């Protein structure tokens, strides 16, 4: 059930896509943050979180994503999300997250927007 959520990253010339798998709870949130911070340290200023492998998140996990958003704002970078389930999409809207990290349907559109 916890699926020992795995996080992987795909580096693409300044931009990086982070892929998640499984339940984003506190552990998985921290795992994502670790990956994100090391990408930032490598100089990536645009991050895309592709959540296609995730069907559940909890608010503790999301609060860690907010830390990443804060960090991106600090360094003048950009963070976006793609491939959210309708419920995760709705939750991010309820929270107002989307004002600081836009949501795109598919990866290609998100990458184009982040590069644009």
């Amino acid at each position, binding site marked *: *059930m916890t699926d020992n959520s795995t996080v992987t990253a795909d580096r693409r010339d300044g931009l990086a896509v982070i892929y998640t798998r499984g339940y984003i709870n506190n552990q998985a949130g921290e795992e994502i943050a670790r990956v994100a911070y090391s990408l930032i340290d490598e100089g990536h200023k645009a991050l895309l979180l592709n959540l296609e492998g995730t069907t*559940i998140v*909890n*608010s503790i996990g999301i*609060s860690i994503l907010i830390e990443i958003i804060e960090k991106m704002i600090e360094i003048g970078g950009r963070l976006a999300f793609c491939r959210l389930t309708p419920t995760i999409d709705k*939750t991010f809207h*309820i929270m107002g*997250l989307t004002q*600081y990290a836009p949501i795109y349907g598919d990866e290609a559109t998100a990458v184009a927007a982040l590069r644009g």
Partner: protein
Amino acid sequence: MNGQAILREVTLTLPMAPDMEVAASKTATAIAEFMKMSPDRIDEVRMAVIEACINAFEHSHSPDRQVTMTFEVVGKGEPEELRITVRDSGVGFDPETIEEPSIEAKLREDRKRGWGLKIIRGLMDEVEIHSGREGTTVVMSKRRR
């Protein structure tokens, strides 16, 4: 309750332990599927259940370390609504004193947490919180469609 009856009532008691909220959410899913709620609405219920359980696990400090949940399928003949009660016998809290979180404030503050109740209220159709010295009871309902 304008002629509504409880068509099914299922009770689940869980330990306050990692991942048990996922077990709770799967039981909720099973009952919601039984009443043929639409998949998107079921998913919203699932997330609300996870949040309500985590709150009890984290904040109740209940000595028995258990959460009791009731799932009631309510309707006149046909299932119309799923009513979920999440009960802990912890320290309780006053929901009135909980500040509504905002993303602007959270981006500045150190504590990014504090979203659970807002998410529950946003995803369910009706939410009531009863809390006091005997603990906390969250009653949340979602119509079938």
